[in-house]
Protein backbone atom coordinates (compact mmCIF):
# COMPACT_ATOMS: atom_id res chain seq x y z
CA UNK A 1 0.00 0.00 0.00
CA UNK A 2 2.03 2.83 -1.23
CA UNK A 3 0.87 6.07 0.31
CA UNK A 4 1.93 8.35 -2.49
CA UNK A 5 -0.94 10.36 -3.88
CA UNK A 6 -1.30 11.72 -7.35
CA UNK A 7 -1.85 15.38 -6.67
CA UNK A 8 -3.14 16.73 -9.94
CA UNK A 9 -6.71 17.00 -11.14
CA UNK A 10 -8.23 18.15 -14.45
CA UNK A 11 -5.56 16.13 -16.30
CA UNK A 12 -2.72 18.02 -14.68
CA UNK A 13 -4.23 21.46 -15.15
CA UNK A 14 -4.40 21.94 -11.39
CA UNK A 15 -1.62 20.59 -9.22
CA UNK A 16 -1.81 20.60 -5.46
CA UNK A 17 1.05 20.71 -2.99
CA UNK A 18 -0.32 18.20 -0.52
CA UNK A 19 -3.06 15.62 -0.30
CA UNK A 20 -4.97 17.73 2.23
CA UNK A 21 -4.90 20.67 -0.11
CA UNK A 22 -6.18 18.50 -2.94
CA UNK A 23 -9.11 17.32 -0.80
CA UNK A 24 -10.20 20.90 -0.12
CA UNK A 25 -9.74 21.74 -3.79
CA UNK A 26 -12.02 18.89 -4.78
CA UNK A 27 -14.58 20.01 -2.17
CA UNK A 28 -14.64 23.49 -3.68
CA UNK A 29 -15.13 22.01 -7.13
CA UNK A 30 -17.95 19.67 -6.00
CA UNK A 31 -19.69 22.54 -4.20
CA UNK A 32 -19.55 24.69 -7.31
CA UNK A 33 -21.02 21.87 -9.42
CA UNK A 34 -23.84 21.30 -6.90
CA UNK A 35 -24.49 25.04 -6.83
CA UNK A 36 -24.77 25.12 -10.61
CA UNK A 37 -27.21 22.20 -10.49
CA UNK A 38 -29.42 23.90 -7.92
CA UNK A 39 -29.43 27.22 -9.79
CA UNK A 40 -30.34 25.48 -13.05
CA UNK A 41 -33.00 23.43 -11.24
CA UNK A 42 -34.66 26.52 -9.81
CA UNK A 43 -34.39 28.89 -12.77
CA UNK A 44 -35.01 26.21 -15.43
CA UNK A 45 -33.81 28.30 -18.40
CA UNK A 46 -36.34 28.14 -21.21
CA UNK A 47 -33.72 27.35 -23.86
CA UNK A 48 -32.71 24.22 -21.99
CA UNK A 49 -36.21 22.94 -21.22
CA UNK A 50 -37.75 23.59 -24.62
CA UNK A 51 -35.10 21.75 -26.63
CA UNK A 52 -34.68 18.01 -26.43
CA UNK A 53 -31.94 15.59 -27.34
CA UNK A 54 -32.74 11.87 -27.82
CA UNK A 55 -36.14 12.33 -26.23
CA UNK A 56 -34.97 14.15 -23.12
CA UNK A 57 -34.71 17.83 -22.24
CA UNK A 58 -31.25 19.34 -22.65
CA UNK A 59 -31.49 20.45 -18.99
CA UNK A 60 -31.82 16.84 -17.84
CA UNK A 61 -28.81 15.82 -19.93
CA UNK A 62 -26.83 18.60 -18.25
CA UNK A 63 -27.91 17.32 -14.82
CA UNK A 64 -26.84 13.79 -15.68
CA UNK A 65 -23.50 14.97 -17.07
CA UNK A 66 -22.81 17.06 -13.95
CA UNK A 67 -23.74 14.09 -11.76
CA UNK A 68 -21.26 11.88 -13.56
CA UNK A 69 -18.61 14.56 -13.14
CA UNK A 70 -19.30 14.66 -9.39
CA UNK A 71 -19.28 10.87 -9.18
CA UNK A 72 -15.92 10.82 -10.96
CA UNK A 73 -14.28 13.15 -8.48
CA UNK A 74 -15.80 11.42 -5.45
CA UNK A 75 -14.57 8.04 -6.65
CA UNK A 76 -11.18 9.22 -7.92
CA UNK A 77 -10.14 11.56 -5.13
CA UNK A 78 -12.19 10.62 -2.07
CA UNK A 79 -12.18 6.87 -2.64
CA UNK A 80 -8.57 7.09 -3.88
CA UNK A 81 -9.23 5.28 -7.13
CA UNK A 82 -6.72 7.65 -8.70
CA UNK A 83 -3.99 6.04 -6.61
CA UNK A 84 -5.05 2.44 -7.16
CA UNK A 85 -3.63 0.12 -9.78
CA UNK A 86 -5.19 0.35 -13.23
CA UNK A 87 -6.47 -3.20 -13.04
CA UNK A 88 -8.36 -2.62 -9.78
CA UNK A 89 -9.75 0.67 -10.98
CA UNK A 90 -10.99 -0.76 -14.25
CA UNK A 91 -12.57 -3.79 -12.57
CA UNK A 92 -14.41 -1.57 -10.11
CA UNK A 93 -15.52 1.06 -12.59
CA UNK A 94 -16.33 -0.70 -15.84
CA UNK A 95 -18.25 -3.65 -14.38
CA UNK A 96 -21.10 -1.55 -12.97
CA UNK A 97 -21.01 0.86 -15.91
CA UNK A 98 -21.56 -1.99 -18.34
CA UNK A 99 -24.29 -3.70 -16.29
CA UNK A 100 -26.10 -0.49 -15.40
CA UNK A 101 -26.10 0.85 -18.96
CA UNK A 102 -27.64 -2.41 -20.10
CA UNK A 103 -30.26 -2.30 -17.33
CA UNK A 104 -31.15 1.31 -18.07
CA UNK A 105 -31.44 0.62 -21.75
CA UNK A 106 -33.82 -2.34 -21.46
CA UNK A 107 -35.97 -0.82 -18.71
CA UNK A 108 -36.40 2.61 -20.25
CA UNK A 109 -37.03 1.18 -23.70
CA UNK A 110 -39.69 -1.12 -22.32
CA UNK A 111 -41.22 1.69 -20.24
CA UNK A 112 -41.51 3.86 -23.33
CA UNK A 113 -43.33 1.04 -25.10
CA UNK A 114 -45.78 0.66 -22.19
CA UNK A 115 -46.33 4.40 -22.29
CA UNK A 116 -47.44 4.18 -25.92
CA UNK A 117 -49.76 1.30 -25.02
CA UNK A 118 -51.36 3.43 -22.32
CA UNK A 119 -51.64 6.38 -24.68
CA UNK A 120 -52.89 4.64 -27.81
CA UNK A 121 -54.77 1.72 -26.31
CA UNK A 122 -58.52 1.50 -26.19
CA UNK A 123 -58.69 1.53 -22.42
CA UNK A 124 -59.01 4.84 -20.64
CA UNK A 125 -56.83 5.44 -17.59
CA UNK A 126 -57.91 8.93 -16.70
CA UNK A 127 -61.30 8.83 -15.02
Amino acid at each position, binding site marked *: *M*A*HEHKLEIFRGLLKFKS*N*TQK*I*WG*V*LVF*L*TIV*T*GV*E*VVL*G*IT*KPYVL*TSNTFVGMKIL*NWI*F*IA*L*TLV*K*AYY*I*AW*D*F*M*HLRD*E*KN*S*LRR*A*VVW*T*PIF*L*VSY*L*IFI*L*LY*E*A*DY*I*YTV*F*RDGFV*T*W*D*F
Partner: protein
Amino acid sequence: METSVTTASEGRVWGGGNRPLDASYGKLMMWFFIVSDALTFSGFLASYGFSRFKFIETWPIADEVFTHVPFFHGNFPMYYVAFMTFILIMSSVTMVLAVDAGHKMIQKKVILYMFLTIIGGAIFVGSQAWEWATFIKGDYGAIETKGGRILQFVKADTGERAALADFAKTLPGERVDHERRNGIWFYQDKALPSFTVNEVTEGLLANPNILIRTETITEAGEKQLLTREESLTRIKDATEVVEGANLIHNEYGSRLFADFFFFITGFHGFHVFSGVVINIIIFFNIILGTYERRGHYEMVEKVGLYWHFVDLVWVFVFTFFYLV
Protein backbone atom coordinates in the same frame (compact mmCIF):
# COMPACT_ATOMS: atom_id res chain seq x y z
CA MET B 1 3.53 -5.28 3.36
CA GLU B 2 5.38 -2.56 1.55
CA THR B 3 7.65 -4.80 -0.46
CA SER B 4 5.97 -8.15 -0.58
CA VAL B 5 6.86 -10.64 -3.26
CA THR B 6 7.28 -8.73 -6.46
CA THR B 7 8.14 -10.29 -9.76
CA ALA B 8 11.18 -11.95 -8.26
CA SER B 9 10.39 -15.50 -9.29
CA GLU B 10 7.80 -16.94 -11.62
CA GLY B 11 7.59 -20.08 -9.56
CA ARG B 12 6.20 -18.32 -6.52
CA VAL B 13 3.24 -16.63 -8.20
CA TRP B 14 0.85 -19.10 -6.62
CA GLY B 15 2.74 -19.45 -3.41
CA GLY B 16 0.87 -16.71 -1.61
CA GLY B 17 1.90 -13.23 -0.63
CA ASN B 18 1.50 -12.00 -4.15
CA ARG B 19 -0.76 -8.96 -4.48
CA PRO B 20 -1.59 -8.33 -8.11
CA LEU B 21 -4.03 -5.50 -7.32
CA ASP B 22 -1.77 -4.01 -4.67
CA ALA B 23 -4.64 -3.75 -2.20
CA SER B 24 -5.20 -5.62 1.04
CA TYR B 25 -7.79 -8.36 1.42
CA GLY B 26 -10.07 -6.14 3.51
CA LYS B 27 -10.04 -3.32 1.00
CA LEU B 28 -10.75 -5.66 -1.90
CA MET B 29 -13.69 -7.15 -0.05
CA MET B 30 -15.00 -3.65 0.61
CA TRP B 31 -14.74 -2.94 -3.10
CA PHE B 32 -16.64 -6.14 -3.85
CA PHE B 33 -19.38 -5.04 -1.48
CA ILE B 34 -19.49 -1.54 -2.92
CA VAL B 35 -19.81 -2.77 -6.49
CA SER B 36 -22.65 -5.14 -5.60
CA ASP B 37 -24.39 -2.50 -3.50
CA ALA B 38 -24.01 -0.03 -6.37
CA LEU B 39 -25.87 -2.51 -8.55
CA THR B 40 -28.68 -2.75 -5.99
CA PHE B 41 -29.09 1.02 -5.94
CA SER B 42 -28.90 1.11 -9.73
CA GLY B 43 -31.73 -1.42 -9.78
CA PHE B 44 -33.84 0.89 -7.62
CA LEU B 45 -33.06 3.98 -9.64
CA ALA B 46 -33.55 2.20 -12.97
CA SER B 47 -36.94 0.91 -11.87
CA TYR B 48 -37.79 4.45 -10.80
CA GLY B 49 -36.87 5.49 -14.33
CA PHE B 50 -39.02 2.68 -15.68
CA SER B 51 -42.11 3.85 -13.78
CA ARG B 52 -41.45 7.43 -14.65
CA PHE B 53 -41.08 6.81 -18.37
CA LYS B 54 -44.21 4.69 -18.21
CA PHE B 55 -46.19 7.61 -16.75
CA ILE B 56 -44.09 10.33 -18.32
CA GLU B 57 -47.11 12.62 -18.89
CA THR B 58 -48.48 12.45 -15.36
CA TRP B 59 -45.45 12.10 -13.08
CA PRO B 60 -45.33 14.60 -10.17
CA ILE B 61 -42.91 17.51 -10.49
CA ALA B 62 -40.39 17.18 -7.67
CA ASP B 63 -39.92 20.96 -7.35
CA GLU B 64 -43.54 21.27 -6.31
CA VAL B 65 -43.36 18.46 -3.79
CA PHE B 66 -40.20 19.25 -1.85
CA THR B 67 -40.61 22.92 -1.09
CA HIS B 68 -40.07 23.10 2.64
CA VAL B 69 -37.19 24.24 4.79
CA PRO B 70 -37.32 23.69 8.56
CA PHE B 71 -38.24 26.79 10.61
CA PHE B 72 -39.22 28.75 7.50
CA HIS B 73 -42.56 29.20 5.83
CA GLY B 74 -42.87 29.64 2.14
CA ASN B 75 -41.95 28.04 -1.09
CA PHE B 76 -38.28 27.03 -1.30
CA PRO B 77 -37.87 24.29 -3.88
CA MET B 78 -34.80 22.13 -3.35
CA TYR B 79 -32.82 24.41 -1.06
CA TYR B 80 -33.00 21.97 1.79
CA VAL B 81 -32.03 18.97 -0.32
CA ALA B 82 -29.12 20.94 -1.70
CA PHE B 83 -28.09 21.69 1.87
CA MET B 84 -28.31 17.97 2.73
CA THR B 85 -26.14 17.16 -0.28
CA PHE B 86 -23.58 19.66 0.86
CA ILE B 87 -23.59 18.22 4.40
CA LEU B 88 -22.94 14.74 3.04
CA ILE B 89 -20.14 15.91 0.74
CA MET B 90 -18.66 17.84 3.65
CA SER B 91 -18.70 14.77 5.88
CA SER B 92 -17.04 12.88 3.05
CA VAL B 93 -14.30 15.48 3.09
CA THR B 94 -13.71 15.12 6.83
CA MET B 95 -13.59 11.37 6.26
CA VAL B 96 -10.82 11.68 3.64
CA LEU B 97 -8.98 13.99 6.01
CA ALA B 98 -9.28 11.31 8.70
CA VAL B 99 -7.88 8.70 6.30
CA ASP B 100 -5.09 11.09 5.39
CA ALA B 101 -4.28 11.74 9.06
CA GLY B 102 -4.36 7.97 9.59
CA HIS B 103 -1.67 7.47 6.96
CA LYS B 104 0.45 9.95 8.86
CA MET B 105 -0.39 8.19 12.15
CA ILE B 106 -1.65 11.32 13.87
CA GLN B 107 -4.17 9.87 16.30
CA LYS B 108 -5.51 13.21 17.59
CA LYS B 109 -6.41 14.41 14.11
CA VAL B 110 -8.06 11.12 13.15
CA ILE B 111 -10.23 11.39 16.27
CA LEU B 112 -11.25 14.95 15.43
CA TYR B 113 -12.07 14.24 11.79
CA MET B 114 -13.93 11.01 12.58
CA PHE B 115 -15.99 12.94 15.13
CA LEU B 116 -16.90 15.59 12.54
CA THR B 117 -17.81 12.86 10.05
CA ILE B 118 -20.18 11.27 12.54
CA ILE B 119 -21.80 14.64 13.26
CA GLY B 120 -22.28 15.26 9.52
CA GLY B 121 -23.87 11.84 9.09
CA ALA B 122 -26.18 12.44 12.05
CA ILE B 123 -27.31 15.79 10.63
CA PHE B 124 -28.01 14.13 7.32
CA VAL B 125 -30.06 11.29 8.82
CA GLY B 126 -31.98 13.81 10.94
CA SER B 127 -32.71 15.92 7.86
CA GLN B 128 -33.96 12.90 6.03
CA ALA B 129 -36.27 11.99 8.91
CA TRP B 130 -37.62 15.52 8.74
CA GLU B 131 -38.10 15.21 4.96
CA TRP B 132 -40.04 12.01 5.49
CA ALA B 133 -42.23 13.53 8.18
CA THR B 134 -43.05 16.53 5.96
CA PHE B 135 -43.73 14.28 2.99
CA ILE B 136 -46.01 11.96 4.98
CA LYS B 137 -47.90 14.85 6.55
CA GLY B 138 -48.48 16.57 3.20
CA ASP B 139 -49.52 20.18 2.89
CA TYR B 140 -52.45 20.96 0.60
CA GLY B 141 -54.49 17.81 0.44
CA ALA B 142 -56.13 16.45 -2.71
CA ILE B 143 -58.98 14.39 -4.08
CA GLU B 144 -58.60 10.95 -5.55
CA THR B 145 -60.88 9.83 -8.38
CA LYS B 146 -62.36 6.46 -9.25
CA GLY B 147 -59.47 5.77 -11.59
CA GLY B 148 -56.93 6.58 -8.91
CA ARG B 149 -55.99 9.96 -10.39
CA ILE B 150 -55.17 12.83 -8.08
CA LEU B 151 -56.95 16.18 -8.39
CA GLN B 152 -55.34 19.17 -6.72
CA PHE B 153 -56.80 22.63 -6.18
CA VAL B 154 -55.54 26.01 -7.28
CA LYS B 155 -56.70 29.56 -6.53
CA ALA B 156 -57.74 31.08 -9.84
CA ASP B 157 -56.70 34.65 -9.09
CA THR B 158 -53.17 34.06 -7.76
CA GLY B 159 -52.39 30.71 -9.33
CA GLU B 160 -51.28 29.41 -5.96
CA ARG B 161 -52.18 26.01 -4.63
CA ALA B 162 -55.27 25.94 -2.42
CA ALA B 163 -55.36 23.77 0.67
CA LEU B 164 -58.53 21.84 1.35
CA ALA B 165 -59.02 23.81 4.57
CA ASP B 166 -59.10 27.05 2.54
CA PHE B 167 -62.37 26.29 0.82
CA ALA B 168 -63.98 23.07 2.05
CA LYS B 169 -67.32 23.54 3.77
CA THR B 170 -68.09 22.06 7.14
CA LEU B 171 -71.29 20.11 6.81
CA PRO B 172 -73.25 18.97 9.81
CA GLY B 173 -73.00 15.25 10.28
CA GLU B 174 -71.28 12.76 12.44
CA ARG B 175 -68.06 11.05 11.47
CA VAL B 176 -66.39 8.83 14.00
CA ASP B 177 -63.01 7.22 13.65
CA HIS B 178 -63.57 3.49 13.76
CA GLU B 179 -60.90 2.30 16.13
CA ARG B 180 -59.74 -1.20 16.75
CA ARG B 181 -61.11 -1.35 20.30
CA ASN B 182 -64.67 -0.64 19.11
CA GLY B 183 -64.82 -3.32 16.47
CA ILE B 184 -66.25 -6.74 17.07
CA TRP B 185 -63.54 -8.29 14.95
CA PHE B 186 -60.83 -6.00 16.24
CA TYR B 187 -60.66 -4.52 12.82
CA GLN B 188 -59.67 -0.92 12.42
CA ASP B 189 -60.77 1.35 9.60
CA LYS B 190 -58.28 3.78 8.13
CA ALA B 191 -57.99 7.18 9.77
CA LEU B 192 -60.54 9.74 8.62
CA PRO B 193 -59.24 12.70 6.65
CA SER B 194 -60.10 16.22 7.87
CA PHE B 195 -62.89 16.60 5.30
CA THR B 196 -65.31 14.35 3.48
CA VAL B 197 -65.56 14.25 -0.30
CA ASN B 198 -68.92 15.94 0.06
CA GLU B 199 -67.51 18.83 2.03
CA VAL B 200 -64.78 19.40 -0.55
CA THR B 201 -67.27 19.20 -3.42
CA GLU B 202 -69.66 21.66 -1.76
CA GLY B 203 -66.76 23.97 -1.02
CA LEU B 204 -65.69 23.88 -4.67
CA LEU B 205 -69.22 24.61 -5.87
CA ALA B 206 -69.56 27.54 -3.48
CA ASN B 207 -66.17 29.06 -4.19
CA PRO B 208 -65.76 30.30 -7.79
CA ASN B 209 -62.12 31.12 -7.19
CA ILE B 210 -61.08 27.46 -6.94
CA LEU B 211 -59.95 25.45 -9.97
CA ILE B 212 -58.84 21.84 -10.32
CA ARG B 213 -55.36 20.89 -11.40
CA THR B 214 -54.88 17.42 -12.87
CA GLU B 215 -51.81 15.19 -13.01
CA THR B 216 -51.29 15.77 -16.72
CA ILE B 217 -48.18 17.72 -17.67
CA THR B 218 -48.68 20.24 -20.47
CA GLU B 219 -46.29 21.23 -23.25
CA ALA B 220 -44.98 24.03 -21.05
CA GLY B 221 -43.91 21.49 -18.44
CA GLU B 222 -46.60 22.48 -15.96
CA LYS B 223 -49.56 20.65 -14.53
CA GLN B 224 -52.78 21.04 -16.53
CA LEU B 225 -55.26 23.54 -15.08
CA LEU B 226 -58.95 22.92 -15.75
CA THR B 227 -61.43 25.72 -16.41
CA ARG B 228 -64.19 26.35 -13.91
CA GLU B 229 -66.73 24.32 -15.93
CA GLU B 230 -64.33 21.43 -16.41
CA SER B 231 -63.53 21.53 -12.72
CA LEU B 232 -67.19 21.21 -11.80
CA THR B 233 -67.64 18.16 -14.02
CA ARG B 234 -64.37 16.61 -12.92
CA ILE B 235 -65.16 16.78 -9.22
CA LYS B 236 -68.00 14.30 -9.79
CA ASP B 237 -65.39 11.54 -10.20
CA ALA B 238 -64.11 12.12 -6.68
CA THR B 239 -64.15 9.12 -4.37
CA GLU B 240 -61.70 9.93 -1.62
CA VAL B 241 -59.93 12.72 0.18
CA VAL B 242 -56.17 12.23 0.36
CA GLU B 243 -53.97 14.11 2.80
CA GLY B 244 -50.26 13.45 2.89
CA ALA B 245 -48.71 10.24 1.67
CA ASN B 246 -48.41 6.57 2.44
CA LEU B 247 -47.60 3.55 0.31
CA ILE B 248 -51.13 3.33 -1.12
CA HIS B 249 -52.28 6.93 -1.58
CA ASN B 250 -50.47 10.20 -1.84
CA GLU B 251 -51.64 13.71 -2.56
CA TYR B 252 -48.71 14.51 -4.86
CA GLY B 253 -49.80 12.44 -7.85
CA SER B 254 -48.79 9.02 -9.07
CA ARG B 255 -48.86 6.46 -6.27
CA LEU B 256 -45.54 5.03 -7.41
CA PHE B 257 -43.88 8.36 -6.76
CA ALA B 258 -44.36 8.05 -3.00
CA ASP B 259 -43.47 4.35 -3.08
CA PHE B 260 -40.16 5.07 -4.76
CA PHE B 261 -39.52 8.01 -2.48
CA PHE B 262 -39.89 5.76 0.56
CA PHE B 263 -37.89 2.90 -0.91
CA ILE B 264 -34.98 4.76 -2.45
CA THR B 265 -34.41 7.47 0.16
CA GLY B 266 -35.25 4.95 2.89
CA PHE B 267 -32.71 2.44 1.62
CA HIS B 268 -30.15 5.19 1.30
CA GLY B 269 -31.00 6.59 4.74
CA PHE B 270 -30.56 3.12 6.18
CA HIS B 271 -27.11 3.00 4.60
CA VAL B 272 -26.21 6.34 6.13
CA PHE B 273 -27.52 5.19 9.49
CA SER B 274 -25.46 1.99 9.44
CA GLY B 275 -22.51 4.05 8.21
CA VAL B 276 -22.84 6.29 11.25
CA VAL B 277 -22.99 3.24 13.55
CA ILE B 278 -19.87 1.72 11.98
CA ASN B 279 -18.15 5.11 12.16
CA ILE B 280 -18.92 5.30 15.87
CA ILE B 281 -17.44 1.85 16.47
CA ILE B 282 -14.28 2.79 14.58
CA PHE B 283 -14.22 6.14 16.41
CA PHE B 284 -14.06 4.39 19.78
CA ASN B 285 -11.40 2.02 18.48
CA ILE B 286 -9.31 5.01 17.47
CA ILE B 287 -9.72 6.59 20.90
CA LEU B 288 -8.74 3.31 22.55
CA GLY B 289 -5.62 3.30 20.40
CA THR B 290 -6.38 -0.01 18.70
CA TYR B 291 -4.94 1.16 15.40
CA GLU B 292 -1.92 2.78 17.00
CA ARG B 293 -1.03 -0.64 18.40
CA ARG B 294 -1.88 -2.35 15.13
CA GLY B 295 0.51 0.02 13.40
CA HIS B 296 -1.83 1.23 10.67
CA TYR B 297 -5.21 2.88 10.23
CA GLU B 298 -6.50 0.72 7.41
CA MET B 299 -9.84 0.20 9.16
CA VAL B 300 -10.49 3.93 8.84
CA GLU B 301 -9.70 3.68 5.16
CA LYS B 302 -12.14 0.80 4.69
CA VAL B 303 -15.01 2.42 6.54
CA GLY B 304 -14.11 5.57 4.61
CA LEU B 305 -14.68 3.75 1.33
CA TYR B 306 -18.15 2.79 2.51
CA TRP B 307 -18.88 6.32 3.65
CA HIS B 308 -17.83 7.82 0.32
CA PHE B 309 -19.94 5.27 -1.47
CA VAL B 310 -23.00 6.41 0.48
CA ASP B 311 -22.19 9.97 -0.57
CA LEU B 312 -21.77 8.83 -4.17
CA VAL B 313 -25.19 7.17 -4.14
CA TRP B 314 -26.78 10.32 -2.75
CA VAL B 315 -25.35 12.33 -5.63
CA PHE B 316 -27.31 10.09 -7.99
CA VAL B 317 -30.47 10.04 -5.86
CA PHE B 318 -30.34 13.84 -5.69
CA THR B 319 -30.18 14.10 -9.46
CA PHE B 320 -32.76 11.51 -10.38
CA PHE B 321 -35.27 12.17 -7.63
CA TYR B 322 -35.06 15.90 -7.11
CA LEU B 323 -33.53 17.50 -10.18
CA VAL B 324 -34.41 15.66 -13.37
